[in-house]
């Protein structure tokens, strides 16, 4: 629900930004040759025709609207956030900002529908109340459940948008205060596979590459990653190479003909468009092709630094290019050409995102990308980068701190020594820390909430009623009496409306804290303005809960000893000492400099020495069976003696769980648009962004639309074996879908694509499979053109 006032506050693109960046998404080109620094270009947007010198103050931060983490300064005028400017000195963006960052960063903050007071449910209705009453109800329920059923009655579902200090505090409350394994984030939906793939190959999470690899590479592989829409500034960085001298070849793996695919063709690269759900077959063919050309494999390096080559060779042996052609619907020669580019380039940079992560066999396919780099020894050197991307801006911190169920500081749940380290740091009994049960993933937490064995579910800064698979079921779970639901958010979202208690939270710019982007760059985002009304920072809310619950350490002192973000950060930083994500040395003071700073301090690329954190004592996981998700035991891990070598792991392809049939002849796939982020909580409140994409839609291939008699703008109904949605059709977009496939964006609460998807997840990462479902498509009638301006 967006009121007219909400968007009037923002008058759209201004002269300060030069052009309308909702149309000129990537901005002006600044091409440059290979090996030279990316030129700077400062992007700015101010509302209400303000000029730069009329701004009262600029407060340093980083953009929170995607995982890129562009450094910026927030413009403040009369106690309001009124605009944003890219930081020229920041290593991530060299001054640039994209349309979401420019137009979406601040308008939401003075939207009249912000939550300003706590709400509690009275006689079925949510009514305003004070903090003491609202928190009192949460604490009463929490204590009662602890008494009656113990800590396993508590579940926490967080976000990819809180700050590091908040996640860490939550992790300590959950693991050392309550002792519940039921903690996860919506990061499960976007980047759980990134973490899983990194852990399987290298022993621990952590992105090996650096964004600066773009300047040094001579080939770029984008796997299921429509970067041109999802991380627009990173894509600008690539365009400045592909349009400059000595451009890298781009290879794009995506069923849709995206802008990335067009660039692949323009640079003499390859666009591979595998049928949705067949990524692993394609990856196996690429791997096999590489192994067939022995000279492309760096055998000395592979022998010294990896284990598992023969197993991988056997796993991929059946996947000839012809076999891939048959399974994936790609051209066998295109597979050969792509493999040749990988095999013959000096420095390949690979990026992976949702097209792989939210698909069938997600972890195995993403691990296959790691394998290709390992086979060529292309890791840890300039240009030889690997970025298993994140979808959300602070997803990385959720994983690092363990608010998502991982063990804090990239530690291993199955390693008693790691559990002891944390028990010492928190001064609690190691048995409190729920290492006797594997962490519970999001879908399972909701199942427990459905059954009522989780009797208190606390949801912060996320909107599962829209973003989770089978959203109708999720809404039923949240609305039911079997589970008490606490929601803390900026707005009365679809999820908050179903809660028992709603807590008004401060957002970006209204609180201080850190977050870390995909290439491990940590930014400190400072408070620029006061939160509205009685809204509080998520950190303060969590501290208030911890105080009221009276959590203590084993000597009876308070468990949570910090009060401020900086104190929380210091406590966190000490917890990471000696772990792969070592934050020590990166203090608030260091982060107050001209640019964000990568962890560990002074390390631009991980694994430059080809030593991986795979020692049994050191690793974050002993690994999994990529096909079943069964865990590898400590003894099995030890027997392999990885000792600092990376794992090469392969798995056979299996067809997706739901294949098209006569009744449901189409493959349905979901995804994102450049103008919106997540469930649009913020971006729908920016008029320039929302005007460009106010509605959900479905993309059809021209041939299919002809057969169905659908023309552009017609209303069509999509029906998988569960649910249905009615949406207008778009035909022959630039991002054309292949025949037999339909594409729906996932951001829209009023037309939730996620009602159509199945509840099924990857066996290792437990990431839900949004990308594959079967469906039927029926034309309902001509579209309604006057509908276009209506807000969602």
């Amino acid at each position, binding site marked *: 629900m967006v009121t007219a006032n909400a968007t009037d506050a923002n008058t759209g693109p201004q002269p300060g930004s030069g052009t309308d960046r909702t149309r000129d998404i990537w901005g002006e080109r600044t091409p440059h040759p290979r090996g030279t620094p990316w030129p700077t270009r400062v992007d700015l947007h101010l509302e209400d025709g303000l000029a730069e010198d009329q701004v009262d103050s600029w407060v340093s931060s980083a953009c929170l609207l995607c995982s890129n983490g562009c450094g910026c300064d927030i413009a403040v005028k009369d106690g309001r956030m009124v605009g944003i400017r890219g930081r020229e000195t920041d290593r991530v963006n060299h001054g640039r900002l994209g349309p979401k960052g420019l137009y979406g960063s601040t308008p939401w903050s003075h939207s009249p529908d912000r939550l300003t007071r706590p709400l509690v449910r009275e006689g079925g209705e949510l009514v305003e109340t004070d903090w003491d009453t609202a928190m009192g109800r949460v604490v009463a329920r929490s204590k009662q459940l602890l008494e009656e059923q113990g800590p396993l009655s508590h579940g926490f579902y967080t976000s990819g948008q809180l700050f590091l200090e908040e996640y860490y505090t939550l992790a300590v409350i959950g693991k050392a205060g309550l002792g519940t394994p039921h903690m996860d984030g919506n990061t499960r939906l976007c980047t759980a596979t990134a973490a899983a793939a990194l852990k399987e190959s290298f022993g621990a999470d952590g992105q090996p590459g650096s964004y600066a690899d773009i300047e040094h590479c001579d080939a770029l592989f984008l796997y299921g990653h429509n970067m041109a829409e999802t991380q627009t500034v990173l894509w600008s960085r690539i365009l400045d190479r592909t349009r400059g001298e000595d451009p890298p070849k781009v290879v794009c793996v995506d069923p849709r003909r995206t802008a990335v695919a067009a660039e692949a063709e323009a640079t003499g690269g390859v666009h591979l468009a595998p049928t949705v759900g067949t990524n692993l077959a394609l990856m196996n063919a690429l791997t096999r092709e590489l192994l067939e050309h022995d000279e492309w494999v760096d055998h000395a390096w592979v022998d010294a630094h990896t284990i598992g080559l023969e197993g991988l060779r056997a796993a991929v042996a059946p996947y000839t290019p012809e076999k891939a052609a048959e399974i994936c619907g790609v051209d066998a020669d295109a597979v050969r050409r792509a493999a040749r580019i990988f095999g013959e380039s000096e420095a390949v940079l690979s990026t992976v995102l949702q097209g792989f992560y939210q698909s069938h066999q997600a972890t195995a396919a993403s691990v296959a990308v790691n394998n290709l780099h390992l086979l060529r020894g292309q890791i840890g050197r300039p240009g030889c980068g690997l970025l298993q991307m994140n979808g959300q801006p602070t997803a990385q911190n959720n994983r690092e701190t363990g608010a998502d169920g991982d063990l804090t500081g990239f530690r291993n749940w199955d390693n008693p020594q790691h559990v002891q380290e944390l028990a010492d740091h928190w001064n609690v009994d190691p048995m409190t820390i*729920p290492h006797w049960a594997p962490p519970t993933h999001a879908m399972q937490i909701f199942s*427990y909430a459905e059954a009522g*064995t989780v009797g208190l579910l606390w949801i912060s800064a996320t909107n599962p009623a829209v973003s989770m698979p089978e959203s109708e079921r999720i809404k039923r779970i949240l609305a039911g009496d079997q589970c008490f639901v606490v929601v803390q958010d900026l707005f009365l979202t679809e999820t908050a409306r179903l809660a028992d208690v709603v807590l008004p939270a401060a957002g970006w710019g209204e609180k201080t804290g850190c977050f870390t982007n995909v290439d491990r760059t940590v930014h400190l985002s400072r408070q620029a303005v006061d939160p509205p009304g009685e809204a509080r920072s998520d950190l303060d809310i969590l501290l208030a809960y911890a105080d009221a619950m009276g959590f203590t350490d084993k000597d009876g002192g308070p468990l949570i000893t910090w009060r401020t973000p900086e104190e929380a950060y210091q406590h966190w930083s000490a917890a990471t000492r000696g772990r792969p994500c070592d934050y020590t040395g990166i203090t608030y003071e260091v982060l107050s400099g001209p640019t964000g700073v990568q962890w560990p301090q002074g390390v631009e690329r991980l694994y430059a020495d080809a030593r991986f954190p795979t020692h049994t004592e050191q690793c974050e996981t002993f690994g999994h*069976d990529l*096909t*079943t998700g069964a865990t590898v035991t400590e003894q099995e891990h030890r027997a392999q003696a990885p000792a600092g070598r990376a794992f090469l792991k392969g798995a056979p392809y299996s067809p997706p769980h739901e294949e098209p049939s006569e009744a449901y002849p189409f493959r349905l796939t979901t995804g994102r648009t450049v103008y919106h982020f997540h469930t649009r909580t913020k971006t729908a409140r920016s008029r320039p962004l929302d005007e460009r994409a106010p509605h959900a839609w479905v993309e059809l291939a021209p041939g299919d639309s002809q057969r169905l008699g659908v023309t552009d703008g017609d209303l069509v109904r999509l029906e998988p074996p569960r649910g249905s949605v009615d949406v207008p059709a778009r035909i022959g977009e630039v991002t054309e879908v292949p025949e037999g496939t339909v594409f729906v964006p996932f951001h829209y609460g009023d037309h939730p694509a996620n009602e159509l998807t199945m509840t*099924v997840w990857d066996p290792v990462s437990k990431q839900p499979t949004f990308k594959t479902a079967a469906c039927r498509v029926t034309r309902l009638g001509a579209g309604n053109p006057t509908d276009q301006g209506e807000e969602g």
Partner: protein
Amino acid sequence: MPHLATYVGLADHSEQTLADSFRAIAEGHAHVADVFHTCRLLAGWCDRHREALAPVVDRYGEQGPGQEGVDEPERLHAAGLAQAREGEVGLLRDLQDLHVLASLVQSTWMVIAQGAQGLRDRELFQIAQDNGTETSRQIAWLDTRMKVAAPQALIVAP
């Protein structure tokens, strides 16, 4: 070597029982998405194991339990799971029953591998090795999934 033939028959039958049981549990817990899909996947592995064994069965002549003159494996013959139990505790017990069945299959392959080596029957040895390895992977999944289900089922479930 009547006893080896008996064990070949036992392997064939117990794989069949395990496959049927995986499928029954999949159907019975269809709302538990990962159990549903994984159990069906693992049932398919059992089918594959039987297919791989088929030529050997022909060669040795299958002698199933209950047939005359071969009485020792009768006590080893495990009844399959025809129906799933209800709820979180029910799921835990079903997984444990599958584990028992899979363990029987696994030890059968181990025993056959020994016998095949003694006879220098390379074909049978390879089949027993490959199938046994996959049975171990089935068991590893059951272990993992039971660990996930256990705390909630034992402590909080009604």
